[in-house]
């Protein structure tokens, strides 16, 4: 059976719907010993800001049932170091490399996106308006329509390639925000970023994270993520990249059925560094088993009577 697994997201042509999620895959080289990165549909590198950021104090991670909280806080060396030192070592990858762009002010987003726009082998950005772990900016942009629109619109002016906007689940109506960023030029939306949470040690009575709050990811969030992908798919006509707790190919298929055109694998990379390859293969197995020749036929194919 001849299978088509290619998917289009704006100007991106993915060889399959499987991408890796920002902040969980480094820049790629971290996983080279374990997998063939060129077999992925795409990778999204760590959240990148205009200036170097040290991130939050340790401890920044707490394990929770079927998941984890993180409060890394966008530690990165800044966009210039990315362009000069990191980009040259990853630009040869035969996959779509997206940079996850973040900032504390609209100006920072614009400046960072403008510099990424100059990189030939970066076909797109993921605009992160949903990081819950920074004091200024980040999620603050993604939790109200006017600010989400302001930053998306401003970056659209300077960024000419594919722009996906990454949405926060920490809102009352995610579909409304998705629709608003679509209207000002987003080529796609990705969701969900992490859910704001807390972990406490009952014995010591202390919070487990230096920042008290952190972002929840992993299988614990999957039903919420699926619901949000489904709601957003009813509200927009741009492609959706779904994520949140995807651990295997079945999870990935579920996100596509709920309306995602592609998916990202995040926390699962920590449990099994080869999981993304298993998901690529597993989607093909599913297609064969169900006689689906084009993966696009799975998008939004959940049967709702």
């Amino acid at each position, binding site marked *: 059976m001849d299978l088509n697994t290619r998917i289009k997201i704006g100007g991106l042509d993915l060889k399959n719907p499987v991408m890796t999620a920002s*902040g*969980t*895959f*480094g820049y790629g080289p*971290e*996983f080279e*010993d*374990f997998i063939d990165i060129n077999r992925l549909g795409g990778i999204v590198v*760590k959240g990148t800001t205009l200036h170097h950021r*040290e*991130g939050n*104090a*340790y*401890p*920044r*991670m*707490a*394990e*929770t*049932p*079927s*998941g*984890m909280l*993180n409060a*890394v806080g966008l*530690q990165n060396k800044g966009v210039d170091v990315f362009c000069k030192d990191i980009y040259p070592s990853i630009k040869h990858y035969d996959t779509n490399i997206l940079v996850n762009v973040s900032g504390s002010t609209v100006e920072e987003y614009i400046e960072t996106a403008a510099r990424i726009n100059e990189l030939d082998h970066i076909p797109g950005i993921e605009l992160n308006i949903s990081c819950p772990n920074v004091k200024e900016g980040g999620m603050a942009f993604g939790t109200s329509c006017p600010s989400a629109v302001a930053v998306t619109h401003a970056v659209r002016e300077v960024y000419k390639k594919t722009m996906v906007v990454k949405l926060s689940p920490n809102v009352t109506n995610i579909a409304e925000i998705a629709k608003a960023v679509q209207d000002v030029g987003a080529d796609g939306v990705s969701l969900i970023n992490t859910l704001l949470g807390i972990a406490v040690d009952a014995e010591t009575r202390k919070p487990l994270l230096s920042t008290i709050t952190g972002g929840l990811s*992993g299988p614990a969030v999957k039903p919420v993520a699926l619901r949000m992908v489904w709601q957003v798919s009813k509200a927009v006509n741009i492609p959706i990249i779904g994520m949140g707790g995807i651990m295997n190919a079945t999870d990935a298929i579920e996100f596509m059925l709920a309306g995602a055109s592609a998916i990202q694998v995040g*926390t699962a*990379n*920590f*449990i*099994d*560094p*080869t999981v993304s390859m298993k998901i690529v293969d597993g989607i093909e197995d599913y297609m064969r088993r169900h006689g689906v020749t084009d993966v696009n036929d799975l998008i939004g194919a959940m049967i709702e009577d």
Partner: protein
Amino acid sequence: MNTDKKRAEDLTVVENRKINKDYYVLKLASKTDLPKIKAGQFVELLVEDTRNAFLRRPISIYDVQPECNSFELLIQIVGEGTQLMSQLQTGDTINTMYPLGNGFQTETKSKNILLVGGGVGLAPLLYLAKKLNDKGIRPKILLGGRAENNIIEIDNFEKYGDIFISTEDGSLGEKGFVTQHSVMNESIDKIYTCGPDPMMRAVGDIAFSKNIDCEVSLENMMACGIGACLCCVTDTKEGHKCVCTDGPVFNTNELKWNIA
């Protein structure tokens, strides 16, 4: 296959040796030749069938038997993950990412070397002592713990160094913390240590005050073990660094510990 690559592999349990109710040694074997393993490197073990031990468990490499493609891990039961792994039987498999981290710097001109292990922190010091023996150095080894039953594997360590013991309750060896042990007053020009954070800081303080070169193996909480998530950082003079890739071993002069 490039043998120096990191792997994620199902390893076979060839032995699960119980030391006492709190400690056990797991011996794991690969079907193929092992990659090169340095003293101080660690593995990440996948504990299956549990919601609570969701992430992998980082454990130091205790000893290596390259001729049998096997290595050993010395594990203390502290929670669900280490408890479940203590039930592994010969013939079971466990998915293991290895070898991870940088390891101890064993190229040293020092001759009077002291290894200080607190509790289960002694684990990475056995293979280190072996490697030092290969260079013709027999180190002094100070094992510290709360009480007698926390001082384990003396017979094994004795083969590679001169043993000194301290317990907080005085049930074995000198009474007190490792830093109060009389061996600390002998002439020493290099210290390697692993154990609870406060102990390592105290050892670091002494090393600093006596101008002794000191390497510490940190045990920060980890998610990925390969430098991808930035969860495990420690504060260094050059900013946050990952304990899983830039460490777990650091020279104390790199760290921002408030030493003297």
